[in-house]
Every structure is written in structure tokens, then in C-alpha cells.
């Protein structure tokens, strides 16, 4: 590829993102270009599109095709109690503060297929806080949301999830919370009562509730700085005074526009607290 080729690829990619926005109102225009380039190249390979314009044509004209192609725009990797030290810090340092509120609202932003939502519900249940909590779980991807709501995960992932759960300070056994059938683990419906699943875009939607904790991990890494600033601005505006924000292990507020609105709370787990205005 020459300079020109890279430049043309970027132009066509931007046109595609514009087209997707105009046709389907999904806004990927603020996504980080470096990984989008690679994922779109994959999509072209996977769908046998020699040119980006072929991909654009099919996306524009075939809504069902766009639903398939969507997985190349968003990344879905998650596991239950991923980074156990983060959940341990929530359990030991954040929940004791949240316990002082009469009711607790948690927002899992970009919840993907829901592993983290169910993990948080278990955490809250074990701390005897679930009954007075609401967990908002939002994502832009309807398929992922449906999976998240279902709360069923492939049985072969459970050994990893169980190890994570124990490392996160789990008080029992993860198997206390699910029943196995047909190679799947279906999680306890009682955990679900306090969950609210909703389609919400950090790129185009606004604040929908006041919350005490936002957990948004390894979602911002796919955004460019401007979109990151927008998303963190939403978190700031929805958090109560001295509310908490948890990010992914390599995500940081310090390079963004809202660095001053938060202070580190558990610095090595990237848990921040909104500063009192």
C-alpha cells in the first residue's frame, strides 16, 4: 500500500461511516480509526468485498446484511469478573460507601453480552444490596443486549468465570448462581429482577438517570478523544455528587477534557470518584 492507498482507504472508510449514520443512525464516526481500519479490512475479506464501496453498497441496501456486519464495527470481548482485582476493589472499597444510600443505581455502559452486568448483580447480592439496587445495562447492539438479558453463557467459559469470581472475593461458589443445561449455564432469574436493559448510544444519546456508579470498561478504547470526552461528560452528568466511575485497566481520564471532574479513588484499578463541585 502506498501513501495514496492509505489516504483513499481512509476517505472511503469515512464515507462508509457517514452512510451507516444516515441510513441506520448508528454513529461510528467518532470511533478510533486505527482499529476500525483493520476491522473493516476483515469485514471486506469475510464478505468477499473487493472494494469498500462494495461493502457500502450491501450495507445500504440490505438491512439484514448490516445486522451481520455490525459485529465488525463493535468489539465484544468480555468475561464474568474480568480483572478480578477490579471487582474486589468494588466490593471492599466502593460498596461500603454505596451502602449508605437508601437506594443504589448502577449503570453498565456498553454492556455487550452482559457478563459484567451479571457479575455486578452477584456482587451486590452477596453484599445484601441487590434488593435496593437497579442496574441499568445499555449497549447499541441489539443482539448483544438480547444475549445480556438472557444471562446464559457457554458452559466451557464457566471454569474461567469461576476462577475470576473466587479471585474477586466471591463468598460461595459461582455454581450457586446458575443451572447447567445443554452445554449452557443459565443464571438465576432472581438476579435479573433489578436489571434494566436499554438501547443507548454514548455517541448520540443523552443522560437518562442519576446513578451512583458507572462501570464502563474497555469501551472507551474504541473511541477517539472527542467521543471519549462526550461519553465521560455523560458519566459526569449522570453521577451523583461523589459518585464512582470504573474504567478498563488501561483506560485513563488524565488525557481527556474531564480529568478535573474526577479524582482517583482506587488508582491501580482505574476507579475514579466525581469531585464535589
Amino acid at each position, binding site marked *: 500500500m502506498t501513501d495514496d492507498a492509505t489516504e483513499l482507504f481512509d476517505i472511503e472508510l469515512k464515507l462508509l461511516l457517514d452512510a451507516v449514520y444516515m441510513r441506520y443512525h448508528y454513529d461510528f464516526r467518532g470511533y478510533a480509526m486505527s482499529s476500525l481500519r483493520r476491522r473493516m479490512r476483515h469485514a471486506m475479506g469475510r464478505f468477499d468485498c473487493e472494494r469498500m464501496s462494495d461493502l457500502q453498497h450491501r450495507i445500504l441496501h440490505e438491512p439484514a446484511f448490516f445486522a451481520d456486519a455490525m459485529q465488525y464495527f463493535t468489539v465484544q470481548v468480555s468475561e464474568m469478573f474480568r480483572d478480578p482485582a477490579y471487582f474486589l476493589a468494588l466490593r471492599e472499597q466502593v460498596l461500603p460507601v454505596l451502602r449508605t444510600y437508601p437506594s443504589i443505581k448502577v449503570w453498565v455502559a456498553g454492556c455487550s453480552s452482559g457478563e459484567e452486568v451479571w457479575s455486578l448483580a452477584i456482587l451486590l447480592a452477596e453484599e445484601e444490596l441487590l434488593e435496593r439496587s437497579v442496574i441499568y445495562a445499555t449497549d447499541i447492539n441489539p443482539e448483544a443486549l438480547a444475549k445480556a438479558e438472557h444471562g446464559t453463557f457457554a458452559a466451557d467459559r464457566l471454569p474461567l468465570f469461576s476462577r475470576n469470581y473466587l479471585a474477586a472475593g466471591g463468598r460461595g461458589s459461582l455454581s450457586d448462581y446458575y443451572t447447567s443445561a445443554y452445554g449452557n449455564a443459565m443464571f438465576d432469574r432472581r438476579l435479573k429482577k433489578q436489571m434494566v436493559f436499554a438501547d443507548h448510544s454514548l455517541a448520540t444519546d443523552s443522560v437518562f438517570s442519576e446513578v451512583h456508579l458507572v462501570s464502563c470498561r474497555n469501551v472507551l478504547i474504541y473511541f477517539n478523544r472527542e467521543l*471519549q470526552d462526550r461519553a465521560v461528560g455523560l458519566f459526569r452528568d449522570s453521577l451523583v455528587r461523589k459518585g464512582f466511575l470504573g474504567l478498563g485497566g*488501561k483506560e485513563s481520564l488524565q488525557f481527556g477534557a474531564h480529568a478535573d471532574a474526577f479524582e482517583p479513588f482506587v488508582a491501580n484499578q482505574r476507579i475514579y470518584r466525581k469531585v464535589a463541585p
Partner: protein
Amino acid sequence: MALPRPLEALVIGASAGGVSALQTVLGSLPGSFQPPVFVVLHVPKDRPSGIPELLGGYCALPVLEADDKQPIRPGHVYFAPPDYHLLVESRDAVALSMDEPVLFSRPSIDVLFESAAAVYDRGLLAILLTGASSDGSEGVAAVRAAGGKAWIQCPVEAASPTMPNAALAHAGADAVLRLGEMCERLKGSTA
């Protein structure tokens, strides 16, 4: 010299045997070295690698493990964190991703090299060191296609020759060098 003029950025990929080779290469960079340096070393996931701290002791430049959207500063060395891909997002910032592993590796050398090639094109020098994988082959091809230069460690010298051999077969190189020769050229690049 097979060096981009001007040299705007340096990317380095290494796998098995890479710690010692990186120690040599990073150790040769003078404190006056201006281009930013990005490094992927294959490491096990799920634990802090400690590698940036270790290698920082041998390098005259600041060595750090990259955070997402970390600003790129001249003469700084950025390592990919375990279990994340490291990409060059623009001349101003890096990016991380948790996209699928490539050839079983995350971080992946191909991902870093391709992203850097798209940003720095002719100003990029890529160095591929020892490794028992074929990661880096596509990356070297992308760097060369974009007009940048690629140096590959002489397979005879490499602790594990698979990676240099695979890249040479797939993409060729602008120079095949021993570590000592690389170091000499890098020292000369700031002159």
C-alpha cells in the same frame, strides 16, 4: 543505511528470546534519540509483565507501558500492555484494542506495524527481532508497501529464527542485520 530520512518513528516487534534482544537494541538508543518508539513483545496475559520497568533500566529514554490515547512524545518508548493490541492512532496518540488475538497473540506485532505504517508511511522504520511465531510478516509487508523501511534480525543470530525467516519469506527486508549492526546504525541515525 536503509534508514528513512527523516526517521519519524520506530516500531519493534519481538517474541521468544526478545527480552535480551530488546535490551541490546533499546540500550543502544542515545538519550538524544528523537523519534517515538513503539514495542510489541509477546508476553503472557493476566499478569503485569514488568518488562517496561526492567528494560527501562537499560535504556537512556523513558520507557513506559502505554495507556489508551496516551499522547505520543518524542524520544519515549511505548510498550504494548499484556492482553491489549497497541496501535498508533495518529501522530498525537496511541490507541489500545481488545480485538481478537492475531496468530494467537495479543498484543500482535502485525497490528502495531500496520497501524504505524498508515500514520508514518515513509518516515517509519520497523525492526523485527527473534521469535517462534509468524507474527510480524504482514506488518513488515505493510510497512514496506507504505514506503517505510524494515530491518530484520539475521536469522542465524536470532535466539529463535522462525519469526525473522517467516517475514523474510513473506515480505523481504530493507536490511538483514545482526543486533550489533542495528545498534550502530541506530546510533548513527541521530547524527
